[in-house]
């Protein structure tokens, strides 16, 4: 079942197109990776899907155009893990996570909200920081707090904007495992933008590849992560090996600019 569908989407920022004419879709319980070089429009795409930005074209969530839904309704369908944390924020960890319950809260929080917050903290291994201030945490710990908040929001769709970029290897894998488990166990659709192609290859069901604001490839890791595609998109020579079921990419060297620009 198609949960998120992006149809002919274009977004222009200050008269410069960020991306244009992009279409893809994500199925129920799927981990969909968005990959591409810096500035290729991944973050903007995620914000458009969550209705934070207003692009031309159409994003549908469970068949409804996102532009027709009230913010609260969107918040019950889509959770968003931003790439960075806003400055000046000082809340305590558990309060930050509790905020994810907001679409369901009137005023008072109940024992079941506390329970959900606790279990999400436990899942991400941040329960020991529960009463620390956010700004006392490392960047990686904050990242996991944000993911915990998305989990207590209990949405069928979670968007993660480069959740692994400031984490060490172990935490990168833990975050990807969490994403995988959410998809497999709770049938949640996870859209996740990534820089690490090997994480994408290992954990994503399908991959959307962006190049300079255009869709360059959409399919399984095997279909998208090929040597020629990587050279065209990233301008590097790479070798692809196989590791079990998935492709394993080893970047070799940057190719000269002349070759990538035809």
């Amino acid at each position, binding site marked *: 079942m198609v949960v998120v569908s992006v149809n002919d989407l274009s977004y222009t920022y200050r008269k410069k197109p960020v991306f244009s004419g992009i279409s893809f879709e994500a199925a129920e319980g799927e981990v969909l990776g968005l990959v591409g070089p810096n500035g290729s429009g991944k973050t903007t795409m995620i914000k458009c899907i969550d*209705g*934070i930005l207003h692009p031309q074209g159409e994003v549908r969530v469970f068949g409804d155009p996102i532009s027709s839904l009230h913010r609260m309704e969107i918040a019950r369908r889509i959770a968003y893990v*931003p790439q960075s944390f806003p400055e000046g924020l000082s809340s305590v960890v558990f309060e930050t996570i509790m*905020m994810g319950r907001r679409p369901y809260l009137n005023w008072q929080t109940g*024992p079941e909200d506390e329970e959900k917050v606790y279990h999400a903290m436990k899942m991400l291994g941040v329960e020991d920081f529960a009463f620390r201030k956010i700004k006392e945490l490392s960047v990686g710990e904050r990242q996991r707090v944000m993911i915990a908040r998305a989990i207590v929001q209990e949405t069928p769709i979670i968007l993660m904007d480069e959740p692994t970029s400031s984490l060490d290897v172990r935490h990168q894998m833990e975050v990807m495992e969490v994403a995988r488990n959410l998809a497999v166990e709770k049938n949640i659709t996870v859209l996740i933008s990534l820089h690490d192609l090997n994480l994408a290859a290992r954990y994503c069901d399908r991959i959307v590849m962006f190049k300079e604001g255009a869709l360059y490839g959409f399919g399984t890791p095997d279909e998208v992560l090929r040597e020629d595609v990587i050279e065209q998109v990233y301008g590097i020579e790479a070798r692809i090996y196989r590791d079990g079921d998935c492709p394993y990419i080893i970047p070799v060297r940057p190719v000269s600019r002349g070759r990538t620009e035809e």
Partner: protein
Amino acid sequence: MALTIEDFTREYSRIKTKRLSFFLVAVALLIVLAMVGITLGSGNLSIMDSYSALWKGFMPRLSGLISWILTGSWAETVSDTPEIVIWDIRLHRILFALVAGFGLAIAGTIMQGILRNPLASPFTLGISSAASCGASVAIILFAGVTLVSGNLLVVLMAFAFAMMASFIIYSMARHKGLNSSSLILAGIAIMYLFSAITSLIQYFGSSDQAAAVVYWMFGSLEGTTWPKLFIVTAVIAILTPYVIMRAWDLNALAEGDEIAKSIGVPVERTMTVFMMISSVITAVIIAFTGTIGFIGLVAPHITRMAIGNDHRWLVPASGLVGAAILLGADNLCRTLIYPSVIPVGIMTAFLGVPFFLYLFLRRGDTGW
């Protein structure tokens, strides 16, 4: 050692208890300050005289109020001097200090929350300098120096200018996309604009008029009356419950526009509503009192440090702290160089500035 769910819920309820205690302590402090305040001032009343006059005057006025509500006519009460001193001079001033301090603190809390800026307050956004400008226009161009404190025109102009300033700031920021830094910049621009206009008007006024403007800008509770108290109380009593009810929106906005949207807050509309509310509260208070600074800045900070950033508690608690600061400052104003009374706006600045610096220098951490 891993935190179990029992530890977590226990710690969470400990935090809730701490917030409640802070609340109760603040209320107790307010009662004490009010009880002290009622005994201060001219009239040569002993402490016992003051309290007995307060008590003696209560029932006649209550029955007077009831008959006024029922029949529309105020039954004249016969009062002795202590009763007049307490009821017609001191009490409404004390209550006004409470209500105004409460309102200014809440307005500051809202602005800091939605703008995510610890320095945001009705004053840094230029609203109070606009009110001063409105007052000086009324004093110099229209009214003259007599009856300054009781002059309806001064009050209306101050209110209108304050609202106009917040409207201008808001539309400018809105035009630029309404993010929090553009609002602050717009506020600073507005502040300088209105200060310049005020100076210009003062320059053309007579020296008496200029003095009246300066006096207005000190900020003072000298001119309070029961009707003024009623107006300010009504506005704050209507708006505060709404703000507390929408506290989750403030919590969400404090996390940033995008995050607030992603957890279900219609950001632009909500910010507009909160801007309006804090502007109206500020404007209605300073229109009557003149510029009383630092309450809206300091009270939220103290409260944040004590009980954290959950606006469900922060908003009412910082209101109580603001009330305590303004009432305490006014009590000081009425006793320090007795029988003269220092304008309370001067006192709040004297108390507020060192305290603010102390907070920053000692902790480097003011809850933000």
